[in-house]
Every structure is written in structure tokens, then in C-alpha cells.
């Protein structure tokens, strides 16, 4: 029944403010099926790959590890373990350059694979999870080290165990992939749709939601078709909808996607759970299915290696810890010297300062951009207040005003203009005719405010300490005074007894004097 089919697909969609159309460049790599990459000679596995408390290393240099063996354990609730992505020997545990916007280093386990790829003993699959205690299933996801694979790397088990008072009604699955160039989620949906849906089913079970909405941008018709086909083969149709959304950057932003699909706005400074929604990426869903149904930890992910400087753009299934250098070599090296290497998409990704950094659980794309693709924007001119940035801003901010206050370091005023609602999507900077690096100004202002906040906390602490010390000294002084007063009072209390000759010393002296006087008198009477 085509009409009913059409009607069932005609969901109401909402539009977020602004957004921009950028050439999606997905054709470079979206025809390349996911391939596995041969094991590299060295795996560099960062021990911190998630948002939250760092993981605690469980191994030391010289140890032999098996594939899937936990090499770092979570510390705290918001944390995630790390597993070895192949079997081999731990050569070292030391700081190495990692994918970080400021080019920082992080502690990594360097593993020399033995080539055998021997699995450690894995926990049993849990195919009967609907009958199990949900806590047991969450514990499995937590054990597997699943984190948000769309980029934020927030531990998934935490997001799947919402507080009881938060009534979660909707699970939003993010397959929008709105960043240009990136095609890893597109390929994953085309090739592994049933597996993704298995993960969705598990998350649906854990959250007990009424509805699951899978949002995919309409520039990926094959992914949409594959997901719809796979959905038709399941019993999930009653509550799951694959929704084609208009292609408009940044529709894959969590807040934007939720707004498009539900019309709800995530409150400022809030999380989706506050409005009854949990949002997970399609890659995360697949990782959840791996953890629960196969018993396999998250040790590899699909990553797009693309850009016009790359000889052969590809979508690769890559063990965590493979370096970007290995990836580029596998893709045939460079066609021409790249202007820059970018980790992540071109809109929000950051330029890599070192050519060789390890792939983590949340690395979705490696871009080698030519100078023509990513031209130097040149020196920025003065802001002419044209307001194109405000028209493009998906958060409905006034970027031109925020820029003004960021430049003048007016950190209070810039917060009045809701700096912290900025999601750093880069729309404003892309449309700015003066080529001002606006996002950079906002990052700067945010860090300045955080630093100031920390300074204030520190000085408040110092002040509190000082006040406590003053109070303590005062108290001690008072106590001393009180003690002295007490002693004095005790003495005063004894004084009235003096008249009775109660003092034995005085009495003894008096007695001695009387004795001496008597002796003297006796001597005089006995005299010649």
C-alpha cells in the first residue's frame, strides 16, 4: 500500500534556526565498503579515551596481553575501561602525542602485536538479555568500554542508566552524519543495519522508552533504505521509525537532531534526559550489540580516511591504537602534499600537529586536505556587523556581539549573550565575510571564564582557609585567656583563708622565730 507507506513516513519535522549548506564531499568515500586494515606493527592505545575520570592501568611494560583483555580499569561511575585491540607484548606505558586540539600528549600503552590476534577469554553472549536484570546488561556495556562514538566519547552505560525520576520517553539514534566528508556512519548503516538495530533494541529495553527515532540526513538515501529494510525484518516497527531529515549542517548536533525530530529544546546547561530523551550514535548502537550479543569489548571502529590529498579515500575498520600514519600508508599515501591533516570533520575537527597520533574510540574521520579544499582564510578584516553569523547560528546566538565582547575580554557581558550555549559548530565562521575565526574567539572566552572560575574557587578556598585559621587562633587565644582567668579566680577564692594562719610556711617561720627568741631569753637569764 504505497499511500499508507507514504503516510507512515510523513512524520512532522521541526526546523532549527540557521544552519548552512556546505558541499558534502561524501562522494569521495561513500562508495568504498568498510575494509579491515592489517594489524600495524605497533599499537598505541591511549588509556584515556572518554569523558570522565581517567582509567587505571592494569598492565606494566613487558606484560603479555591478549586481544580484548582489559588493560585499564574504570575509576568512578563516569569512566570507561580500555581493552587491548590485539594480542602481543606491552613495550612501554608512556606519554605519546594523542589527537588533541592543543597537541597535548597522553599516557598510552604501546603494544607490539604478536600477529596471532589471540582472543582473551570473553564473557558469554547475553542473547536472553530481556529476561536479565537490566543492571547486569548495563554492567556488560560498561565492561565493554562503550562510549559515544559520534565524537563526544561519553561512557554509554551512564547514559543508559538514567535516574528513576527522569521519565525517558524517546530514544533518538543519530545517523545524521552532517559533517562533510565523513561516511563511516553511512557505510555502517548500509552494511550493518540489522546489527545496529539489535543494539537499538537493547538500548530500548534498558531505557524502557515508548519510541525510538532514527534520524538520517536525506543525502544518504541508501543508508535510509538499508535501515528501513532491516527494520521491516524485525518486530521493532511498532515503536521504531527511520526518519529522513533534510540535509542541513549541523543537523547531527545532538540538540539540533532532537529538535528536528521532536520539536523539543534541550534546556540551556541541561542534558536531553531532562526533557525525556536519550540520544545515541548509530556506531554506539553497533558497539552495544557487540558487547551484549557477542561479548566483545569496543576495540575497533569504522573511520573514514578521506580528503583530496589522499591517494585512495576509504572507510576502514580500524583497531583502536592504530596510528594515523598507518592509515594514510594503507590508503596509498598522499596524492599531493596536504595543506593540513584534520582529525574529525572539516567543520568541527581540529588540525593535527603531529602526523602520527593513535585512533581512539571516538575518532570518526581523518582528513588530508589540499590547499584548494581548505584554503587559508587569510588575515581577518574588521567585523562589519552584517549579521550573517546570527542568521546561520543554530543556537540563535548573536555571534557578532559575542565576538565584540570576546575581543574586549568582557567576560561577564559575553555570558549575558549566552556564550555557553555555543556548540562551536563553525557556521558563523564559515559565513563570515571578514573571515574572522569566530569559533576560536569563543573557545578562548570559554577557557578564560573557566580559568577565572577556577581562580575564584581557589581564592575562595584560600579565603575560607584564612578565615578558619583566624577563627582557630582567636578561639585558642580565648581559651588560653579563659584558662588563665580560671586559675586566677581559683587563687582569689583561696585568699580569704590567709588570716587563720593557714599558711604552714609562715607558721613554721613564726614558730622558729618564737623558738629562737625563747632560746635568746634563756641564754640571757643563764648569763654570768
Amino acid at each position, binding site marked *: 500500500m504505497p499511500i499508507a507507506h507514504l503516510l507512515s513516513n510523513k512524520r512532522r519535522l521541526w526546523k532549527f534556526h540557521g544552519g548552512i549548506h556546505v558541499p558534502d564531499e561524501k562522494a569521495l568515500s561513500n562508495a568504498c565498503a568498510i575494509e579491515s586494515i592489517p594489524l600495524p606493527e605497533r599499537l598505541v592505545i591511549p588509556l584515556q579515551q572518554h569523558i570522565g575520570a581517567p582509567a587505571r592501568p592494569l598492565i606494566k611494560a613487558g606484560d603479555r596481553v591478549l586481544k580484548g583483555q582489559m588493560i585499564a580499569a574504570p575509576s568512578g561511575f563516569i569512566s570507561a575501561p580500555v581493552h587491548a585491540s590485539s594480542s602481543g607484548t606491552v613495550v612501554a606505558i608512556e606519554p605519546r602525542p594523542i589527537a588533541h586540539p592543543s597537541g597535548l600528549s597522553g599516557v598510552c600503552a604501546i603494544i607490539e602485536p604478536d600477529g596471532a590476534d589471540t582472543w582473551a577469554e570473553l564473557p558469554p553472549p547475553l542473547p536472553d538479555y530481556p529476561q536479565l536484570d537490566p543492571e547486569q546488561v548495563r554492567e556488560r556495556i560498561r565492561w565493554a568500554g562503550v562510549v559515544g562514538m559520534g565524537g563526544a566519547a561519553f561512557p554509554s552505560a551512564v547514559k543508559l542508566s538514567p535516574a528513576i525520576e527522569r521519565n525517558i520517553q524517546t530514544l533518538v539514534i543519530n545517523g545524521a552524519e552532517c559533517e562533510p566528508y565523513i561516511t563511516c556512519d553511512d557505510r555502517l548503516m548500509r552494511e550493518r543495519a540489522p546489527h545496529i538495530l539489535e543494539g537499538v533494541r537493547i538500548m530500548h529495553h534498558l531505557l524502557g522508552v515508548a519510541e525510538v527515532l532514527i534520524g538520517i540526513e536525506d543525502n544518504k538515501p541508501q543508508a535510509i533504505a538499508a535501515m528501513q529494510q532491516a527494520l521491516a525484518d524485525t518486530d521493532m516497527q511498532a515503536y521504531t521509525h527511520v526518519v529522513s531529515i533534510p540535509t542541513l549542517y549541523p543537523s547531527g548536533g545532538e540538540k539540533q537532531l532532537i529538535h528536528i525530530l521532536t520539536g523539543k529544546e*534541550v534546556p540551556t546547561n541541561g542534558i536531553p534526559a531532562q526533557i525525556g530523551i536519550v540520544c545515541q550514535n548509530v556506531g554506539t548502537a553497533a558497539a552495544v550489540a557487540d558487547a551484549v550479543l557477542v561479548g566483545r569489548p569496543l576495540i575497533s571502529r569504522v573511520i573514514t580516511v578521506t580528503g583530496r590529498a589522499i591517494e585512495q579515500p576509504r572507510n576502514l575498520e580500524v583497531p583502536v591504537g592504530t596510528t594515523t600514519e598507518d592509515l594514510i600508508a594503507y590508503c596509498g599515501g598522499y596524492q599531493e602534499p596536504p595543506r593540513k*591533516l*584534520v582529525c574529525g570533520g572539516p567543520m568541527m575537527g581540529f588540525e593535527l600537529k603531529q602526523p602520527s597520533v593513535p585512533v581512539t574510540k571516538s575518532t570518526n574521520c581523518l*582528513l588530508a586536505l589540499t590547499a584548494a579544499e*581548505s584554503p587559508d582564510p587569510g588575515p581577518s578584516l574588521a567585523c562589519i556587523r552584517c549579521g550573517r553569523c546570527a542568521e546561520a547560528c543554530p543556537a*540563535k546566538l548573536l555571534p557578532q*556581539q559575542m565576538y565584540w565582547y570576546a575581543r574586549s575580554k568582557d567576560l561577564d557581558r559575553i555570558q549575558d*549573550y549566552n556564550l555557553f550555549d555555543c556548540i562551536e559548530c563553525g557556521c558563523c565562521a564559515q559565513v563570515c565575510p571578514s573571515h574572522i575565526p569566530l569559533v576560536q574567539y569563543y573557545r578562548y572566552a570559554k577557557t578564560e571564564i573557566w580559568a577565572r572560575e577556577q581562580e575564584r574557587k581557589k581564592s575562595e578556598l584560600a579565603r575560607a582557609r584564612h578565615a578558619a585559621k583566624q577563627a582557630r587562633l582567636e578561639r585558642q587565644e580565648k581559651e588560653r585567656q579563659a584558662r588563665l582567668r580560671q586559675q586566677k579566680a581559683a587563687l582569689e577564692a583561696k585568699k580569704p583563708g590567709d588570716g587563720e594562719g593557714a599558711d604552714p610556711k609562715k607558721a613554721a617561720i613564726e614558730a622558729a622565730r618564737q623558738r629562737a627568741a625563747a632560746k635568746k631569753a634563756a641564754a640571757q637569764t643563764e648569763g654570768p
Partner: protein
Amino acid sequence: MKSTIVSSPHVPRANRVDQIMLQVLLALVPGVAAMIWFFGWGVLINVVLAVTFAVLAEATVVLLRGRRPWPAVGDLSAVVTAVLFAISVPPTLPWWLTLLGILFAIVLVKQLYGGMGYNPFNPAMAAYVFLLISYPVAMTTWLAPSMLAEHGFTFMESLRAILTGALPPGLDWDAVSSATPLDEMRGKLDLDMTIEEIRQSPLWGSFGGRGWEWVGNWFLLGGVYLLWRRVITWHIPVSMLTGLLVSAGVFWLIDPQTHPFPAFHLFSGAAILGAFFIATDPVTACTTKRGQVIFGALIGVTVYVIRSWGGYPDAIAFAVLLMNIAAPTIDYYTQPRVFGHGGERG
């Protein structure tokens, strides 16, 4: 790889200031051509003189400020200011007044406030007002439109008039100049004539002054081009013209014999030019969308008030400058509701 690190986004930028300015200049072409057609070569000579003075003044001040003149002059904003100024002044304005006006606009109003992007007032309009107040006669001596003129100026005659102030032999200023439609309307209304009587004069065309009305149409064409290319949005022009039309309409409905019909206001003076090219100057206008609607509407109403009861027949420049003062305040009170701040729907 180069060592400089460029912040995200890593994609080509969509716009450039000089390209935006170039679009504005392109959009001005039909209107300026119409002005040349109706008012002679003097218009073109003024444009060329003004642009030359403006570029030289801008480059000099930027050099004095210790910066390289190229990017500053290359953004074409001084050229736009110069053209807007040149087409606002009478076509035979002495060259030194053009120079004075341009120096005022570029050096005082623009560069001394910090240059491109920092000037609170529209430079072209500030210079126009400065000259209008200081040299009222020279600034109101307009030639008659070509169809009404007994003597059409040749290129050389225009040039001579501008450079030396000399008119072709046998002519004096009274013979070649003509009241602008706004002047004419004001003067006659002050003489207690009815609109019907006033419109008997051959000065009047189908909806405004003859000649003048068509200039407005050609500027409108340029304005539509700017809207189409998204150089400007509808908010300021539409709200400004609506403000003007509504004010004019209300009084016209009250008494059509003493208040000119709304279309007269629309197609006289610089209403269209002002709505699409002057009030929309991004640097000096409001930047929030709601603010722009208020900004535009207030300009429209102010134009009507000054035209009807003020001391000058046309009022675009005064109204724009007045609202330039108000723009930051309007912006402050019209901030959009930010995503996630209350309300379920955006």
C-alpha cells in the same frame, strides 16, 4: 605542511567583504545610469571625483595609522560610500565641496572612529548632512530632469560647471536649476495650494516628480538584486518603506488635499535609494532581525515627520543618522530567544 594552525572550520569561506561591496556597486548601476540619463554627465563626473578622493583619503589615513593601505582600500567600502555620497548631491556641485564631503565622510566619520566596521554613523549621510547645513544653496541647486530642461548640459559643460562653477554662455543658475519635487510640494503647500492644484504643474509624472520617479524605479531594481543575492534581507527596506507609506497614508486619508498621496513619498527624494542602499549599511544599522524591523520602521516614520513638518524637504539622511544613534539600544532590547532558553518551540 605549513606550521600555522588554522582553527575550524576547515572549509572555504562562503563570503568576502569585497565581494559584498562589489554586489552593492553592481546593484547601484541601473539607478546611477538613470540619474545620468535624467540629470546629465555631472552625476558621473561627481561619482568619479568622489571615488578618487575617497580612495586617496582612505589610503592616506590608513597609512598614517601605521597600517598597510591595501586590504583597507581593497574592501571597496570607501568606494561604496563615495558613490552613495556622489549620487546624493546635486549634479553640478563644485568639486571642492565633493572633496570636503568625502574628507568628512572618510576621515572624520569613518577612520577617526576606528575605520571599517567601527563607525557609528553612516559616512555618506553624515557628509551629506554636514554639507547641507554648511552650504545649503549649493546643496539644493538641482538641475531639472532632462525632459523638463530647456538646456541639456554636454559632458564638457558639466565638467566646466563642476570644476570652475562657470555655466554655458547665456545661462544662469535660475534658468537651469529646478526645484526638486519635494521642494516644489513643500513650497506650494506652504502657499496653501491644494494637492490637485499643485499637480497641474508639468513637473509631475504619474506618481512622483517627472524623471525622479523613474530614478527610484531603477534603484528599486538594484535593491531587488541585492535581496536576490542575499546581500541584504527584506527587514530594513520593507519596514522602512512601510513606515513611510503608512504614515503618509494615514494623513492622506485624513485630508488628501493637504497631504500628498503615499506613492509621492515613495518615489520622491531618496526613499528607495535610502531603503535599499543607505539604511541597510550593516555597520551602522541594527543587527538583530526584530531590531532591523523597528530600525527601518522608525526611519520611515521619521522621514515622513521631517518631510512634512521639518526644516528640510528631504529627510533620509537625517532619519538614518538619528536611527544610527538608536541602533545599539534597539539591538540590546531585541535579542532573539536563544535555543534552550524557555519555550518548547523555536
